[in-house]
């Protein structure tokens, strides 16, 4: 099971955190500090796994971002690497060659995508296309609601002019 997902920039800034196991606010800060200290300092050719507090953290660096997932001892580390890559490809497809800035300004979108991919710390969908389709459908629902709202406020504005 994935206990949490972290996206950390090379400077140690947190770009996304998702906790599937209960950690208090204080613990979360501590975990992030501890792990970024461990992971950001590792050399480029070393393996992508670090052992930490009886768990394993699988991480992979994409450009300036480290994608980290914390899993149980007996989980399949290689598969988690594949899940990370799967997530990155979906982000890439959604944003069109994703970069760190996309994830900063549209952090909520990244969360929505992650929620279509992982629930309760387990993988939900292996098809990138399906995830993209579901996100697009929900985005268009939001757009439709916005349009409706603005046309309503136009009507109100006209009426009260």
């Amino acid at each position: 099971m994935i206990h949490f997902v972290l996206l950390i920039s090379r400077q140690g800034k947190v770009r996304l955190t998702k906790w599937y196991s209960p950690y208090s606010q204080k613990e979360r800060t501590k975990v992030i500090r501890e792990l970024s200290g461990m992971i950001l300092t590792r050399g480029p050719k070393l393996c992508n796994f670090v052992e930490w507090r009886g768990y394993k953290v699988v991480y992979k660096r994409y450009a300036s971002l480290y994608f980290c997932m914390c899993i149980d001892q007996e989980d399949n580390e290689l598969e988690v690497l594949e899940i990370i890559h799967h997530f990155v490809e979906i982000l890439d497809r959604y944003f069109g060659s994703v970069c760190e800035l996309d994830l900063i300004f549209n952090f909520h979108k990244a969360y929505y995508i992650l929620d279509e991919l992982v629930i309760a710390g387990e993988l939900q969908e292996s098809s990138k296309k399906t995830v993209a389709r579901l996100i697009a459908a929900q985005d268009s629902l939001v757009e439709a609601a916005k349009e409706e709202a603005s046309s309503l406020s136009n009507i109100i504005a006209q009426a009260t002019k």
Partner: protein
Amino acid sequence: MNPFSSGTRLRDMIRAIRASKTAAEERAVVRKECAAIRAAISDNDHDYRHRNLAKLMFIHMLGYPTHFGQMECLKLIASPGFPEKRIGYLGLMLLLDERQEVLMLVTNSIKQDLNHTNQYIVGLALCALGNIGSAEMARDLAPEVERLLKFRDPNIRKKAALCSIRIIKKVPDLAENFIHAAASLLSEKHHGVLITGVQLCIDLCKISTEALEHFRKKCTDGLVKLMRDLANSPYAPEYDISGITDPFLQIRLLRLLRSLGKDDADASDTMNDILAQVATKTESNKNAGNAILYECVAAIMSVEDNGGLRVLAINILGRFLSNRDNNIRYVALNMLMKALAVDSQAVQRHRTTILECVKDSDPSIRKRAVELVYLLVNESNVKPMTKELIEYLEASDPEFRGDLTAKICSIVEKFSPEKIWYIDQMLKVLSEAGNDVKDEAWHSLIVVITNASNLHGYAVRSLYRSVQAAGEQETLVRVAIWCIGEYGDMLVNNAGRLDIEEPLTVTESDAVDVLETSFKSHSFDLTTRAMCLIALLKLSSRFPTCSQRINDIIVQYKGSFVLELQQRAIEFNSIIARHQNIRPSLVERMPVLDEATHSGRKAGSVPAAVSTSQGVSVNLPNGVAKPSAAPLVDLLDLSSDDVPAPSSSGGDFLQDLLGVDLVPVSSQSGTNQAQVSGTNVLLDLLSIGTPSANSSPSTIQASPSNVDTKSPMDLLDRLSSPSAPSVQVSTTAGSSPMLDLLNGFPSSSPIAVTEGNGLAYPSIVAFESSSLKLTFNFSKQPENPQTTLIEASFTNKSGEVLTNFIFQAAVPKFLQLHLDPASGNMLPANSSGSIMQKLKLTNSQHGKKSLVMRIRIAYKVNNKDVLEEGQVNNFPREL
């Protein structure tokens, strides 16, 4: 009011935060935004609620407190539109976790949304429930989720399946409700549903044997077929990852098959063919393929034995091990650990490669490899393996040395074919990485040396040589000092020389030189220097010619600012100067330390004699509490039988050490007194070097520090003026201060001091297991007989530190329980500390029913969760 003017946009806030050049600037921006958001919240602003929440989430990610926004999430979730709900649920998952009470309020909204007509809203609710649902929510909403497992849209079914996993993990009792629904998910076509359905089955199998049996009987064939279809499937663009169709699904299928095949020959038989096919046909040049192979090997190792398959699996691991990719090598080492249990012969074949991995530049790989090597060592290969490891010790990273030395020490101790080899290897380790060696390791070395009477001379001479070469390794120096003190004469006269030894000429003053340099070295800590003093005292008797020089060294420290050194210097100086006649017997060699007691203690199982004696501090008639023998035994590694009876004044070791002539002081009441203070001096002499070795679970541990300031002085008074019996008279007369002094350790002292009103009760051992001891002390307020105050004290008898320690208690209805917070959540090993926790019990049927309590203790040891449970029935009746 113009709706477009209130507050900044999310994008602008992020820009402003990013534009901040200093942390202070950033804080100012955040503070301003938070103020605006709080204002908007108190105005109950509807239009910008979602934007404000989005901002809060960003602020939250930066690590600022955002609890004031929690209620906004609930309001957004409760609003009718999809956009509001979407952001509301996101905020809920981000800002809250399952432990927050606010979450209770959202259960109803989630329930409504689970029944919503819009499937995307149903999806949001399922996602939130799956990610942060608490046990209460799981119980309340399980029927809805169960129903959604049959929803028409597959995307909802897959979410419901994962949600079910959360539910059964939180409330395992609900597992059986999901068994049939989960089984029917396995016959679906949609990959998302299959992946989640298989995962649900895996988790059900872990929780319920009923589920395991059901799936084994009904689903094994179907799963094998599914796996075969996938493995043989033609190119499927939607699910393809580097030429493999849906590795995620394949991996999960293999994992479920592993659970089903474990300990079941029939099921294992069914899946043999497909496992063989996957193991041979899967492409291994890409990560996805290797992930499948890795899972397949794990499955082969778990299912019932099939020789051919095992060979196949071990070969795959061998290939992995020689792979250039570090990730693959890492998982190979990981899996070889499991393979060791199945086929250690096959793993031994890869020994050389594994030893190479110990030297890898990647700490993760090294750690795995060392652990594997540790398991690989046996009697037949211990010599070459140790040689390799010790050679590598020299080159290893400083941060890795601790781990490595601990493993080497443990290997050497466990498998040493002969004592001389053990001593040699330990000396090598101490010379190379003495500062990383744990106390237990060098303590056991000393124990082994004292027991090998034919090697005393050899050991002390080798140590002398090693110290000359590596005098900066503190633990090496300690062992050398100890041995020179004990066997200094053998060092000089080459007694008991073995054939293999090179001749060594050491003069008496050379030996004293070693001690003097170490003693005066500033890089060594108090323990080492105090040990030097004892060794010097011993040598002063062994080497009469150096006696004056030694006395001169000792005298210099009579004015030391370090209390411990000063005290020893004064004591020893007085022994050398005034008590020549008793000195030789005083500094005789230590009795042989008992190996069995030592190793037993290390394993955490303290001999019964010790654990019982420590509980009962005998309250002697003359009012002097004599601390039980435990600490003494502990310090000297003697079995408690060796503790001198108060009357014995002949050859007991107290005299050996200090030559305290008990005879003149043993007036009737003074005997125990002298006994006690003698013990304390002894404690004092020896305790300092071995604080962490004291593994007795006794609280008396705390006492030396209280005692040693006073009683040795007492003793010295007596030494210098043996004709003054007034000393004893005063101490016996003032019995209660003495009692205080000796029982000055925490109030958990087993002697309940009875107050005037008689409201004291004997304390009880409420719970005891191999690793834990829980003692209850009771007290009552006289005006409130129904209420009992309990002070619980936990000690850790094992050799491992316990962390995340939580104590829980439950009582029947007629009792009321109030728990105060505990004094800590970490228990140091070997009873070297305790956690205290106060409980208040109110008995509504006081006088009719006695107290009873169920307890549960959870903690982590070596990062493994441990749960201990028990019932306390032995409360004193009158409570």
